[in-house]
């Protein structure tokens, strides 16, 4: 059943397995965009599949490996264990696990140090808040989401030690109405700076902010200022397409030796996208403080703690 790799042409074959719909305008959509760029820029033969359950995920990994794919992205920490099981049988395939847990043979984790960007966003929120209450709305309590939250909290505390942080989990990445109500519930108790990491469900947060004067929002994963141009101060961006493209290119060129790929502020994959429209609200000197913090993080002199995946 293990179809021989040489049977196919020596085209560079790349597959992406997403744990949810690629139409989610967020985590999965970003990866899908990356896959498209891999096709366009590297001329790779691509394929993708949604695999929601552990059973489907392992099956998908195995199927791609068996079909001779050189590179298989498992888009989420949950692919780590099945990938480790599958990889033993397919040494010629490289499995890349986004937000992966550890390096294990040909299973390569792709680590996003998102907390470095959310730290900066947290600083902004700490300065901008009038009420001293800031809020975070998460889809589920997943490691990459908690990681971002950790950075956000540290950043805010760094500029305002007494800041209060409110946290809500929706247990859904789809239910945008829930995201909105959760945001409104926070606004009612005085939260005036909101950060989210809930993909499609998080879009409700922007809707809530649009209706609530004086509330500012901090986007996640993509640059989300277009969702509420007069409310979004900045977004903690993970440039997924770029990250995927960078690794794929290394592998295509054969320059790749197995190691954990870790992207932080220095890589450009992780960055803080500021909304220039709202920079007028920034108190004088803030821009410099942010820049300084960013530089220190890149230089390694400022360490943002976080449960970064091992």
């Amino acid at each position, binding site marked *: 059943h293990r179809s021989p790799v040489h049977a196919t042409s020596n085209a560079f074959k790349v597959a992406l397995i997403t744990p949810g719909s690629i139409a989610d305008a967020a985590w999965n959509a970003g990866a899908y965009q990356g896959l498209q760029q891999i096709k366009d820029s590297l001329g790779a033969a691509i394929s993708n599949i949604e695999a929601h359950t552990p059973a489907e995920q392992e099956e998908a990994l195995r199927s791609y490996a068996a079909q001779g794919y050189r590179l298989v992205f498992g888009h989420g920490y949950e692919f780590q264990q099945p990938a480790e099981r599958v990889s033993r049988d397919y040494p010629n395939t490289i499995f890349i696990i986004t937000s992966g847990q550890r390096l294990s043979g040909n299973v390569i984790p792709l680590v996003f140090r998102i907390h470095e960007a959310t730290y900066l966003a947290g600083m902004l929120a700490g300065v901008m808040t009038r009420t001293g209450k800031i809020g975070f709305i998460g889809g589920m309590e997943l490691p990459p989401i908690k990681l971002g939250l950790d950075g956000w909290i540290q950043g805010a505390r760094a500029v305002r030690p007494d800041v209060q942080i409110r946290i809500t989990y929706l247990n859904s990445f789809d239910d945008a109405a829930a995201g909105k109500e959760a945001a409104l*519930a926070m606004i009612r108790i005085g939260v005036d700076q909101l950060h989210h990491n809930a993909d499609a469900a998080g879009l409700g947060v922007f809707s809530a902010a649009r209706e609530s004067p004086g509330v500012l929002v901090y986007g996640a994963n993509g640059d989300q200022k277009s969702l509420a141009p007069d409310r979004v101060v900045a977004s903690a961006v993970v440039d997924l397409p770029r990250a995927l493209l960078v690794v794929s290119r290394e592998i295509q060129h054969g320059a790749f030796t197995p190691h954990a790929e870790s992207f932080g502020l220095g890589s450009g994959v992780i960055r803080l996208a500021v909304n220039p429209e709202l920079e007028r609200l920034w108190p004088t000197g803030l821009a410099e403080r942010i820049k300084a913090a960013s530089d220190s993080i890149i230089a390694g002199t400022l360490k943002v703690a976080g449960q970064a995946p091992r």
Partner: protein
Amino acid sequence: MIDSALLVGFAAASVRVGTPLALAAVGESIAERSGMINLGIEGAMLAGAFGAAVGAAHGGVASGVGAAVVAGLLVATVFAAVAVAARADQIISGTAVTLGATGLTGLLAQRAFTGGNLSLPILPVVHVPVIEHIPLVGPVFFRQTVLTYACYVLIPLASALLWRTRFGLELRACGEAPAAATAAGVHVGRTRALAVLMGGACAGLAGAALVLAQVGMFTERMTAGRGFIAIAIVALGRWNPWGTAAAALLFGGATALQYTFQAAGSHVPYQLFLALPYLLALAALGMAVGRHRGPAALGQSH
């Protein structure tokens, strides 16, 4: 001062969250009064949400609402054809219809909305002059979108339809004793089909409320089980529109409460809050329904 503002905010949120539930449940209560239990309203609601998004994207909120109703009606038509006309098992037909609508909206959404998140025009909050200033009641009930107001109109309308019109009498007869209704000259199949369609239209509106009054966009599976909840709400509300609306408000309150609790930073695991509305509904079913039975012929094909 702060407390009363908080209370108003929470109560208004209950109304807002309860609106789509009430819309769907009022429609379903009509269907169930005719003897049809329609698990397909989850699908009708999702289709309504999708219709609302597509309609609003191309022709503004008004066409969004219109398209939502049409989409809800379409899904209900399938259910009526299978469960009323062909007299198939209602539970299984409803499950199938929801499954199909979930797949179809997902499929179409991937075609219609890929490439960025399309933000839609949403319904503005309309302040009803004068009454909005009534303490508590005003800001809670009369600073909402037109779809909430539509709900205020639909509840008495549905109630009047069921208890004040000839059609309502016939409809309830179909739900109590289809054979007796036939003997009285009622066209049971036609009446039930109409009731199911009304339920579908209301479910479509509920979908529109989600998209156009709350979120401003469509996401796959965004109804997240609200249609199923509406069915429980109908039983909680003892199969009458006013009771149903009250139950929807209660459920909306329980949901709003869980966000408030989470935001307030409780140490109780948040999953308990997530489960709270459902546990509450179950407990309420046990207490409230008790010996009160639904329409005698509910779920029976004729």
